[in-house]
């Protein structure tokens, strides 16, 4: 029975594996992400029902939109004012181990800006779908090529989620975010923020909202929050500027507007902080 003594030694060594102090933050971050993802699934389910009630839902095999449908959908306003945002494509389907939960928005308004935004959204959605299918196929190949068995593969599946949410709407302005996500081995997410002024047919900038010294105001607010995040042991998720951390906002920095008009600057995951921090957001106080 020598091996059982041996195991007690091996187990002791195993039990003494040092635990990094980030573990607890990473677990809490995982819990938050998981709770959000779980709620998103439920919301999606609910929204699908509401959409069905409004005769919105279409089961589409691809992303081709029929003109007849577009016309019918246009009769159901979601937002008032000069424009409306509607879900033009909404479906929930499974195909080859991929679950699709898709709501693609489309802006209906006069002006060239609207067309551009819609075209960009469509292009991003198409690219995302293509990338997701390719990632899944590559993963499947790698799984079996490295000795994975059918049994281990089991009922593995990947989630492809396309969704949007409107953060602010007035008669002339709209601020919304389109989220493209893949959920499987590692979760992967892209977000695109749009802030539009439909009366002027153009994008709203941080300068419009905060005035001439918008860069300084953003940088002050962000630096203060990063400084405040350092704990008693000198630890923070944020990278130092030398390590690729935050330096300054610029014309490409993403933001959205809250219901009350407050701008919130958002950085992609990993851009200025460790992955556990998610997508860091900074509220920039209005004067």
């Amino acid at each position, binding site marked *: 029975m020598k*091996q059982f003594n041996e195991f007690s030694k091996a187990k002791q060594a195993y039990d003494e594996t040092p*635990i990094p102090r980030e573990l607890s933050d990473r677990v809490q971050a995982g*819990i938050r992400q998981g709770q959000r993802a779980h709620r998103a699934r439920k919301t999606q389910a609910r929204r699908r029902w509401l959409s069905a009630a409004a005769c919105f839902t279409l089961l589409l095999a691809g992303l081709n939109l029929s003109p007849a449908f577009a016309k019918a959908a246009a009769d159901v306003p979601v937002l008032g004012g000069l424009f409306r945002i509607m879900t033009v494509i909404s479906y929930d389907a499974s195909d080859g181990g991929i679950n699709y939960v898709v709501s693609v928005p489309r802006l209906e308004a006069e002006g060239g800006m609207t067309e551009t935004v819609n075209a960009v959204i469509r292009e991003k959605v198409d690219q995302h779908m293509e990338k997701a299918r390719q990632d899944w196929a590559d993963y499947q190949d790698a799984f079996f090529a490295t000795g994975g068995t059918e049994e281990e593969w089991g009922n593995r599946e990947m989630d492809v989620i396309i969704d949007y949410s409107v953060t602010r709407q007035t008669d002339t302005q709209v601020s919304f975010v389109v989220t493209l996500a893949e959920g499987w081995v590692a979760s992967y997410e892209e977000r695109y923020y749009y802030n539009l002024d439909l009366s002027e047919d153009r994008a709203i900038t941080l300068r419009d909202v905060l005035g001439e010294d918008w860069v300084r105001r953003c940088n002050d607010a962000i630096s203060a929050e990063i400084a405040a995040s350092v704990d008693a042991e000198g630890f923070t998720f944020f990278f130092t500027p030398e390590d690729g951390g935050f330096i300054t906002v610029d014309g490409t920095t993403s933001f959205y507007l809250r219901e009350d008009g407050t701008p919130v600057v958002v950085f992609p995951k990993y851009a200025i902080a460790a992955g556990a921090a998610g997508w860091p957001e900074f509220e920039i106080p209005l004067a």
Partner: protein
Amino acid sequence: MAHTIESALTAYLTAEQDRFYRLAFSYLKNQEDALDAVQTAVCRSLEKQDSLRNPDALRPWFYHILVNACMDLLRQRSKTVPFPETEPGQEDPPPPDEHLARQVEALPAEVGTVIRLRFYEELTLKEISAATGANLSTVKSRLYAGLKKLRIAMEGAEDE
């Protein structure tokens, strides 16, 4: 109802996190990867909490997700970093001078999982069956295959 499952799950994940990390580390041998695997598994488990039908089976249910996350990362890594190929079923005992823990790491993945869960995490064979999705007799034969391999290796070591 749904809320009690979520809070039970969250409490369990927070309380047992060190164990998850150790298990992940024993597969991945790398702190950053082990943290990624734990975070991914925690996130997935909450996302898929509705699939936990029997709250008493929480532990094997979560280990299933965690082991899958570790294996996925190993595979993903083997796509980028050259990884020593272990042919399934190849009777190739680990070097005799290695410590038992190293020999466990050298076992074929399914066999190594059974050994880890049985002797490190002290799951019952039935729980291991639930955690790996393999039926009980497969788990048993993997356990004995693993023990046999390790014993052969150890006898080899004693001959030195």
